[in-house]
């Protein structure tokens, strides 16, 4: 299911209402557990409106799934956490306003790791989402529901959010295209924060063209996000079948220990294929990569410990029977409302920011982050894209790693440096390990989404993936 296909269907006489009905029917019979809240009424109402007045806007009549971390007015938004049970935002996130303005139809909210803290969508209070390629396996995380919904043909488009790989990891595991934009390209207004200085909302689709289209809709300056920037171009227009100017850098640190052999082979195959299509490549080094995981987890957990302080059940979210005094009430709500992984990260983050430790951890992490950023800037002077495996291995079994938080943290090794550097990166399908998809990560210069999308597009068109 892709945007062009749907447009053709609609042109051939199918109504948007029929389309939306069939989508809900599919979701309701699905085993993927990709959607956690459906917006049936508003979606059908909007579908009928489009049928009556015609499809308008860049996404007129096109259905889309939204990660449960993005605020949707009138539709319950919980970050798949018990603590936000029943919270219905009174306002739309910037990206939702943009989607509505361009005529998209919001189908519902997709499954995710609780507060986006995970790599498998197993920590959701709604239960794990499943990988369409193998239902016993995870779809990746944290935006697992969005990737599974697209891969499973439930919706052509979906939005996720990527703090340390949360779009690219599930895109890789589910064999779809997922982009983490440059920090500042897409407004975060309305995205429930996990780690503010790292995350971006990003698009999912079955192909590069649709990702570029969705990026066109959601990107650009928003005065409500102080870190938001003006975009330089329209991305769909920039897609050309030409990579002759593309100079690929292959950072050796991303092919090291812990990378599955089949994955490594597939990605090298992808690089060679691009070379055949006219690109060139050189092997390069990003020397501070080894500190990335430590730096990432300190920054992310520190920011998270502060971001999640507001959930006290006082104004919205979980309530527990009889209220006691404020201190007891909010302590009990937090104890029961947050899951294990969330509590672990709040505790570690609180520790890292405490008096006497701030300089040792948080401040030091910020300094090393600057070095990592410089690595990328330096490497991307002589090259215009970097290519690496997205994930070190294909999708693992549900339950296989959930008991080992550290092993799960290590899975982010190739995705977190990109968030630390703030550069854009797209994951495209690049072959299989058995019947499980492999993802290739194409990283670009700040605000140069055009080049990485074009590289991905050429790769996809010429038989990659």
């Amino acid at each position, binding site marked *: 299911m892709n945007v062009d296909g749907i447009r053709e269907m609609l042109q051939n006489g199918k109504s948007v209402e029929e389309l939306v009905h069939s989508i809900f029917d599919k979701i309701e019979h699905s085993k993927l557990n990709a959607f956690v809240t459906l917006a049936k009424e508003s979606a059908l109402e909007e579908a009928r409106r489009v049928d009556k007045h015609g499809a308008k806007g860049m996404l007129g009549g096109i259905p889309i799934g939204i990660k449960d971390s993005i605020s949707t007015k009138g539709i319950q938004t919980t970050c798949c956490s018990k603590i936000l049970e029943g919270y219905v935002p009174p306002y739309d996130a910037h990206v939702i306003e943009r989607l509505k303005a361009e005529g998209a139809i919001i189908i519902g909210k997709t499954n995710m790791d609780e507060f986006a803290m995970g790599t498998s969508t197993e920590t959701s209070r709604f239960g794990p989402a499943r990988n369409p390629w193998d239902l016993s396996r995870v779809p990746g995380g944290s935006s697992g529901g969005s990737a599974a919904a697209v891969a499973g043909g439930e919706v052509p488009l979906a939005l996720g959010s990527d703090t340390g790989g949360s779009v690219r990891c599930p895109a890789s595991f589910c064999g779809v295209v997922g982009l983490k934009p440059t920090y500042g390209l897409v407004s975060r207004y*309305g995205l429930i924060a996990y780690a503010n200085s790292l995350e971006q909302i990003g698009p999912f689709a079955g192909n590069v063209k649709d990702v570029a289209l969705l990026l066109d809709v959601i990107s650009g300056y928003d005065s409500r996000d*102080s870190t938001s920037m003006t975009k330089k171009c329209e991305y769909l227009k920039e897609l050309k079948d030409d990579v002759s100017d593309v100079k690929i850098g292959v950072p050796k640190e991303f092919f090291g220990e812990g990378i599955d052999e089949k994955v490594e082979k597939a990605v090298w195959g992808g690089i060679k294929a691009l070379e055949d299509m006219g690109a060139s490549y050189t092997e390069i080094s990003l020397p501070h990569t080894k500190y990335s995981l430590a730096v990432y987890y300190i920054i992310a957990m520190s920011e998270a410990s502060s971001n999640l*302080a507001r959930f006290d059940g006082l104004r919205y979210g979980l309530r527990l029977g009889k209220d006691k005094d404020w201190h007891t009430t909010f302590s009990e709500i937090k104890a029961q409302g947050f899951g294990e992984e969330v509590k672990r990260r709040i505790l570690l983050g609180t520790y890292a920011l405490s008096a006497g430790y701030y300089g040792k951890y948080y401040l030091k992490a910020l300094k090393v982050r600057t070095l990592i950023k410089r690595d990328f800037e330096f490497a991307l002077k002589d090259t215009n894209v970097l290519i690496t495996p997205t994930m070190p291995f294909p999708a693992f079994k549900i339950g296989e790693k959930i008991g080992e938080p550290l092993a799960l943290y290590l899975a982010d090794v190739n995705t977190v440096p990109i968030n630390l550097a703030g550069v854009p990166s797209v994951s495209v399908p690049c072959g299989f390990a058995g019947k499980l998809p492999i993802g290739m990560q194409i990283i670009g210069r700040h605000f140069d989404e055009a080049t990485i999308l074009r590289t991905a597009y050429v790769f996809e068109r010429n038989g990659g993936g």
Partner: protein
Amino acid sequence: MKEVIIGLEVHVQLNKLRSKLFCSCSTQYHDSEPDTHTCPVCLGLPGALPVTNGKAVDNAIKVALALNCNIEEWTMFYRKNYYYPDLVKGFQISQYDYPIATNGSISLDMEGGERIIRIKRVHMEEDPGKLVHVGTIDKSRYSLIDYNRSGMALLEVVTEPDLRTPKEARLFLNKLKNILEYLDVFDSSLEGSLRVDANISLAGGARAEIKNISSYKGVEKALLFEIVRQNNLVRRGVKVVQETRHFDEVRGITISLRTKEGEEDYRYFPEPDLVPITIADRVDDIKKTLPELPDAKRQRFVLQYGISDNHAKVLISELGLANFFETVATEVDANLSATWVADILKGELNYRDLDISAFSPNHMVQILQVLKKDTITENGAVQVIRTILDEGGTPSEIVKIKSKDLLKMDVDASENITLRVIEENPGAFQDFCKGKNEAMHFLMGQVMKETHGTVNRSTVIELLNKSKKEKLQNAPDNHREA
């Protein structure tokens, strides 16, 4: 008695701004229902992001300039993490390292001469919501929260421990308020516009921090209480411990809240949703917009209008009063204006708990003009002021209606009455002609009684002297007798 050491942390609301510090909600909530001036940002709803109000930064720079501070090249916000039910996000956006300004001062005019109070730092932060209790905080069974105040821009002014008496602390606050009102960034009449944390210790002892005192008088009262309490401890040989105390306005006492061991770790870190703000490039433009400040105005009043420093000091204590004086002084004699505005009008206003906006400078000009023309007496002018304040009306209307009491009698009428008094009191007049002072006072008293004080003393004396002269010319016998 040991030396007293006081430092203040003053939180003032920048309540002249149109919108809050990080959202576009209106600041005009004081007469509104709870929670009607809120949005996702100031309610701290998940996903909402702050955006700094540039005007708030400009106002903060204005204050920093007026307090003679060093203004930093750039400034940034931090998160101050703590839990309290009025705090919607579980942290307050405040400043920590890189505050907007440091190292300023305020000069106080004390009996013993000028005192310089050093300002350590000035920083911006957001106001939490307001807790409302039925009865008192310790008796109420529940708390209500009004989030209208949440996100209002606060400026925290921190002094060095340079204050030595509770009175100095009060004068410092008055001076600060005075400066802020001159800058047009602060309206002290609004509820919750000022809150003070006061640090106080006796030389060599531990300090107590009295939190959240919400009135100017409260600060002086709390400090006076604290001096007595700490002195009593010292006298009894008990060690003063470092602690945070609460001031109970009703009972006028301070109560221990927590000792040093219970101090919170605020886990400050840079607010990731905001970017550092470069301010150095704005300072010059803002400097140009700075109005004349109280100290400068006081000097100018003395030089330009030739009025006394005491009058100037009273007149500049409120910007409205100073402007009122200048309007009046350009129309009528400056010294007369100063006396009537600073001494008489100010007194009448204070008596009625009114401010200068209750009286029109035009009316003052008219009153002083008729007074100068000798059409009414001083007493009459005071009556006109009182009538305007109590009943309304304009000076000319009042003078017309109450002419019997207020109008200065014309010279003929005065003469008739004076001559009648002379006729009715021949003995006294005789004595007067002999140069007896008491006789003059007696006759004057009689004339004043008859005219209800509506004639000028000098006119009466003139008339008496004229009669004396006539008498001496017409009655040479009497003259010889004398």
